């Protein structure tokens, strides 16, 4: 809590010191806007009672134009991208009355989880200026299939299904109002990590848009780690599978044997 406050205060000072430095140079208008971010924690622990976590990202805009700021022409998008892996999407079809996986497509290196928060609704044409979100957001994640594609027309169906399922499963999330300005140039973004968040290195990315155009971006890694017993179990299961299997069997033998002693009918 204290470190979060300290970070917050230090961020508060950033625009002030920058502003102070610019005045003697007299070129405030030509200096490009910048972006600084900090995260409330750089490691999230998955414990035995893990039910998801909230991540707060603090950030500050530097050299912001006061007029554009006043009319809300700056937009911030913050994303949290999970570790990447291949993903297989399968499609069921009815064969002899039974629903069977018949078709599948493998997408290369897509994030296992993805949360996005923004200052306003993305992909909403009624809001002006439109944000040119190329490469940012769930709709713009590149989903490249590998291998032979039988029917190109199916590709968009599979992509659409992938996004829909990931959103439904909670691993992909979008929060239109997740980013709030706490002062003219200081903002705070809240991102939710679901209970089934994959462990590994996640990346927090913040994007600054001016009048809908991407100006700059920043990124910070965030580690999601299993801790204590959970970590030990996963490590052993994957690194020493034989010993792990033996342990599982031993526990079962002892439990069964113990029960026959405890409940012995004499």
């Amino acid at each position, binding site marked *: 809590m204290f470190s979060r406050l300290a970070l917050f205060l230090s961020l508060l000072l950033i625009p002030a010191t920058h502003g102070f430095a610019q005045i003697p140079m007299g070129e405030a208008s030509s200096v490009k806007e910048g972006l600084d971010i900090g995260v409330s924690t750089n490691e999230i622990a*998955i*414990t*035995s*009672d*893990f039910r998801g976590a909230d991540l707060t990202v603090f950030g500050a805009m530097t050299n912001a134009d006061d007029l554009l700021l006043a009319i809300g022409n700056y937009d911030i998008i913050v994303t949290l991208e999970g570790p990447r*892996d*291949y*993903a*297989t*999407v*399968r*499609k*069921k079809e*009815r064969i002899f*009355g*039974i*629903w*069977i*996986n018949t078709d*599948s497509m*493998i*997408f*290369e290196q897509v994030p*296992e989880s993805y949360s996005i928060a923004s200052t306003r609704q993305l992909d909403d044409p009624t809001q002006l200026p439109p944000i040119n979100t190329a490469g940012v957001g769930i709709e713009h994640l590149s989903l490249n299939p*590998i291998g032979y594609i039988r029917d190109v027309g199916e590709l968009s169906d*599979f992509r659409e*299904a*992938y996004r*829909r399922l*990931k959103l*439904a*499963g909670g691993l992909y999330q979008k929060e239109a109002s997740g980013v709030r300005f706490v002062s003219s140039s200081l903002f705070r973004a809240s991102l939710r990590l679901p*209970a*089934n968040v*994959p462990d590994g290195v996640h990346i927090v990315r913040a994007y600054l848009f001016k009048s809908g155009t991407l100006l700059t971006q920043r990124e910070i890694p965030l580690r999601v780690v*299993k801790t*204590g017993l*959970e970590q030990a*179990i*996963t490590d052993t*299961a*994957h690194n020493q*599978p*034989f010993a*792990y*299997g*033996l*342990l*599982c*069997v031993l*526990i*079962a*033998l002892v*439990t*069964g*044997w*113990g*029960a*026959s002693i405890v*409940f012995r009918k004499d």
Partner: protein
Amino acid sequence: MRSFCFALSGSTVTIYLPIAELSVNIFIILGMGAAVGFLSGMFGVGGGFLITPLLIFYNIPPVVAVATGANQVVASSVSGAITHFRRGTLDMKLGTVLLVGGLVGATVGVWIFSWLRRVGQLDLFISLLYVVLLTTIGVLMLQESLRAMRKAKLNQPLPLKRPGQHNWVHRLPLKMRFKKSKIYLSAIPVVTLGFLIGILTSIMGVGGGFIMVPAMIYLLRIPTNVVVGTSLFQIIFVTAYTTMVQAATNYSVDIVLAFILMVAGVIGAQYGVRVGQKLRGEQLRALLALLVLAVGIRLAVGLFIRPQDLYSVAVGGIGY
């Protein structure tokens, strides 16, 4: 087991399963284990054929459900086998011959399991196998127990099973003498039976007692008193072996899930045994038949109704 205490002492009752990689309500898992344990004690079955489908209904990935189910069966068969060993109703020699086939079958089964997983048909195959076996056995058991109940009502003596009667099985070569069971039987059908059950153990996560026991009684004509103990003896080793192989090839045994199920299961079984002793044999079998049928039908419905989403996503792609 420190982490369990943490989960319980906090305001939450969820527990994170490290291999299944999801959080579950600990009381639901405990309840499942206790309920299946109770039924297994009551009916004298291992309970694997109920645990695995229940875990799948509770959204545990089938891969984990099957491997963990096999692990849980180890615990429930050990206590049963010890009881039979004390009573002298366990034929070690017969069990060992069964086991030879069982270990080979379990190895083949894990290959099939890994292959099905790779081609994306594992879930379907597990469900199909369950539906076919559970409905077949459920119907057969129900018929048999209803017939027995009707006869009991008419005060007719039940036809005794004749272990001495011979059929084609007894004309096979490679005969062995099994002293405890007092039979002289070819090793071929015994090994074959063990082999087939072994395959089922690794694909379905069951001990296979619910198939092995009738097969031993009706097909191999092994005396009924040694059948249950001997099948439990071989189930311990085949499920233990399957647990090891699943752990080594699919990394899918969840020790936390298995432990909760085991503890709840062995306690539930003690109460089940007491209730089971008060009920009559044919009523008990009719109840079990209905239960088996219900699980089978529930799984069958899942195969035939249109899924909510025709698509599904799995992490990984190549050679997983």
